[in-house]
């Protein structure tokens, strides 16, 4: 009987190995483990054995059945896996074919830089003010210490609409409007981004339309040192943490003292290169302490109030940051250009 069991185990194992489908496997299972299987027959025969033999052979039968069950299970897994493998192989695609063209949009680089600068100033407690582009001579010039016939008006050749209205030449009239609107003379910390116009022929470095951002702080204690600290912060945020700044004397009618601000060259780190014309410094903006004539025109007592202002051209910042060689690219809207930002 023992021999028969061993023989059956071998036969079952062979039969299982030969199964290639689940159905075949089920047939083999029925043959060896089903009700009419030979194992069952052997179990019937156990009755004829002695009481000592019964448990021993019974155990052997159970072990043989378990072994076969395990083999069947293993074969089943194998067949399932092969089936899935075949399916996966059949479903395999050429993943190198191109994906669907999902369009990706792009903000204009000037918008990006304006938003970047706005965010820096908002973090410093500034609010954003806007104003009209068609502006009165009064707000664009006269109240900014640029009376009619002032020679410095020539610095800003303008597009006139009537004798008294023009396209604003800077965003400074928004400062005037904000000073006037601030009737309680609360501390004022604002930035004014916007489109401005100068009567310049368009060429590589000039554009009759461009964008500016100006900042203005007026309170009882804003100092030149505060201006310098603010400028350094802006320079670092825009051009990198390692930047330094230097201030040079300049002249704007609406500020006194006035300065030009240079940032240490971010290409050569101040050593001198073609970008900074070997000086190690790049001019980025103009600034100064608000001229008392501007504050007085807006009704402020200059014994009490003082402040600073700064202004920069957005195109210049963009051109410097990304090495754009021609300002006209910024208004051409060649999508191959716009897509890079």
């Amino acid at each position, binding site marked *: 009987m023992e021999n028969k069991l061993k023989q059956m185990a071998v036969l079952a194992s062979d039969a299982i190995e030969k199964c290639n489908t689940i159905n075949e496997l089920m047939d083999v299972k029925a043959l060896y483990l089903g009700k009419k299987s030979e194992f069952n027959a052997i179990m019937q025969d156990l009755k004829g054995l002695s009481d000592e033999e019964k448990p021993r052979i019974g155990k052997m039968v159970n072990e043989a059945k378990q072994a076969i069950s395990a083999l069947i299970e293993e074969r089943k897994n194998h067949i399932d896996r092969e089936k899935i493998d075949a399916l996966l192989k059949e479903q395999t695609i050429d993943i190198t074919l191109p994906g669907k063209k999902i369009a990706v949009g792009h903000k204009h680089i000037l918008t990006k830089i304006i938003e970047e600068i706005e965010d820096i100033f908002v973090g410093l407690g500034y609010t954003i003010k806007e104003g009209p582009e068609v502006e009165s001579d009064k707000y664009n010039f006269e109240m900014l210490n640029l009376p009619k016939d002032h020679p410095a008006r020539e610095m800003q050749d303008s597009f006139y609409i009537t004798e008294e209205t023009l396209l604003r030449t800077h965003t400074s009239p928004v400062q005037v409007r904000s000073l006037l609107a601030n009737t309680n003379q609360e501390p004022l910390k604002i930035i004014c981004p916007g489109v401005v116009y100068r009567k310049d022929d368009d060429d590589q470095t000039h554009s009759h*339309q461009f964008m500016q951002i100006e900042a203005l702080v007026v309170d009882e204690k804003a100092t*030149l040192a505060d201006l310098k600290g603010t400028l350094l912060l802006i320079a670092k945020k825009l051009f990198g943490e390692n930047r330094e700044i230097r201030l040079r004397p300049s002249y704007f009618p609406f500020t006194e003292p006035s300065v030009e601000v240079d940032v240490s060259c971010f290409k050569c780190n101040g050593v001198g290169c073609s970008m900074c014309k070997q000086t190690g410094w790049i001019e980025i903006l103009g600034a100064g302490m608000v001229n008392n004539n501007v504050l007085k025109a807006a009704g402020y007592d200059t014994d009490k109030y003082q402040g600073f202002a700064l202004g920069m051209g957005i195109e210049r910042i963009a051109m410097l940051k990304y090495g754009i060689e021609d300002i006209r690219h910024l208004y051409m809207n060649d999508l191959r250009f*716009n897509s890079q930002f």
Partner: protein
Amino acid sequence: MKVSINWLNQYFAEKLDPKDLVKKFNLMSQEVAGLEKLVDIDGLIIGHVKSAVKHPDADKLKVCMVDVGDEELQIICGAPNVDANQKVIVARSGVTLPGDFKIKKAKIRGIESNGMICSLAELGIQAFDSNELGIFVLGEDALPGEDPLKYLNLDDQVLELDLTANRADLLSLRGVAYDTAAMLNIIPSFHEPQVIRETTENPVSIFTQTKNCQVYYGQLIENITIKQSPYWLKSRLIASGIRPINNVVDITNYVMLEYGQPLHAFDYDKINSDRILVRDAMDQEEIITLDGEKRGLLKGDIVITDGERPIALAGVMGGLNTEIDASSRRVLLESAVFNSIKIRKTALRLNLKSESSSRFEKGIDARKTLEALNYASELLVRYADAIIVGKPSFFNTINPKKKTITLSMDKLIKVTGLKFEEDDVEKIFNRLRFDFKKKGDTFIVTIPSRRPMESYQDLIEEIVRIHGYNMIPLSIPVTPTQGGLNKKQKTKRLIRNFFVGKGFYETKTYSLVTEEMARKYDKETLPTIKILNPLTKEREYLRHSIIPSLINVLIYNKARKIEDVFIFETANTYFKNDEQEKLAFLLNGKSDYSLWQGLDKEIDFYHLKGVIEALLEQLKITNYSIRASLSPLPNLHPGISAELLFGEEVVGFFGRLHPEEEHRFGLKDVYVCELELKKLYESSEKQEMTYVEVSKYPPIERDLAIYVANEISAHEIIEVIKKTNKKLLNSVEIFDVYYDQNKENKKSIALRLEFLSYDRTLEAREVDEQISKIIVNLKKELNAELRS
């Protein structure tokens, strides 16, 4: 302003370091545009022509033996004026002349030549002697082997300053010397003019009939000999960018450069009287200026007259009728100050900007008028054999009292944020040569006439720049304020982000356009705004709409084979007394496609409409309506365009370009939209964010297909359905539109209706009841027929 370093050195005991000057000017005064050698040639040498004989094989060449100190060179020279015993300028082989012209040993017609005898033109300084016939011949005293540039005073460097409008003082060498002294903390010394005068009475009398001339001095000078100026004077003029002419003209220019005071010389024998009258010009008066042009004058111009006729356009240009010429013997030399605004206007109107008019425009030290005149007299005696006839005639309305400005230490520290010491400030004022008194910790500063100043802020600037901006500490404003974007600014960013998310590119186009473009896409055809002084016809009008600019962007990109153009822009548009901020966008080509999968449909009207609906959803605007335009814009397709409304108010339009417009630009299927941003901001701001719990119960869907007449719109069908059941109907979707060939003038519309309750599970029976009612109403109101 071009500054000769040699000239500037003259005011100081020790020579200046030009490179250090550049650094100092940049950081403490004015931006330096450049520092260059006046003549940038190395290795020129003085030669003595020992002999010059005709070249055996060339008629026009001479073989010269030239002693250059350490050797004798054989040089072939083709100049007609070369001769033995001349002192000449020699460029030996190895020297490079302007234009990258390198001198090399060469054989000319068989004879060796070891260098070149130079003309001034070849050295790039022809202005030095405009009468030059060939090579330049130096004086007898020139020593062979020495540097000819040094001999001619041309061994100079030129410092060019970019001047700001507030530094008219630096339009003079003396002004530059004062600033140099302050920056370097050294002491300048200035020559006091010494005039030898004849004791005869000066017969000239000077009168004024205008407020526009503050001071006028006229000096009569006799016995003038017109000739060339000395080398040193010529070279300084050339260094300053002024062409030497003759001794009298050169001296007036030289004194102008030294003092910043323009002078003018009249030929006294051509003036018809002894009387000079300064007055405002009369309208329609005329003068022929030195350049031979007849100039029509206006009342705002100032003229110098001989009592009758104008003899000069004051401050701008002299009259041809009193011009100095080679035979002039008597000169009336003018030194005066005219109203800067008037001079500016006249020079601008007549396009006559000059060294002298620009100095009058920017302001002149009116206390140096006489001194400048005296210096010119001194030089004319020395270099034009002049005799000075008595004292100058004049009138002078300058207030002799000097202006003072007070500045307290408190104010200085409060403005700068730097704890200055009184001693620092005193030292700086001394360096600037500003006179001051002290009252406690307050400085009372007397403002020198050469540096006009208005307020203590100007003094602070002087103190800080001389002290150094690098000394100012770093801080940030201490007053606390709340920063942030307002609602409108946030909404604008949201809109931009929406379009970027939907695959659009943002553009920036010009506000100024052609007249034709400016008028387009404006339904009300409001008047456009024109620029009085445009640069070109292309940029003459302010636009009413962004769309024409977007179409140009499309054309530009199409020409470069960029086929899918999805662009948007937010910008102002301009109307009389009003600026409207608008959002415009344009779609053309394909979106979200995959060619190899056959997904390559061109976008259509419904894509455009979908973008608008999505934008409104993003902005939480729900109470809007869309309708076919009652009077479509002429450049839009009348059957494929619509308006967006909030209530009764039109917010904007959208649709396809008119086929004729498309054809004109060679375009196809261009969709555009333009909306007024203000209305979007306002409507978006009104929308509150609210919350409703989602239903716990399942919805029931029913599909419905009907035939209706072709002209019935989808909107009308949906309205009937919605009206029939307001409570349970959750949504209506159209999922098929089909034009059946067998049903004339009718279309089939298939709808999917979704019913939902928030308080119970719906039963099929009640939904079916609703469907029946809907079918009845559709039949009744739209004559719809159920498709079986």
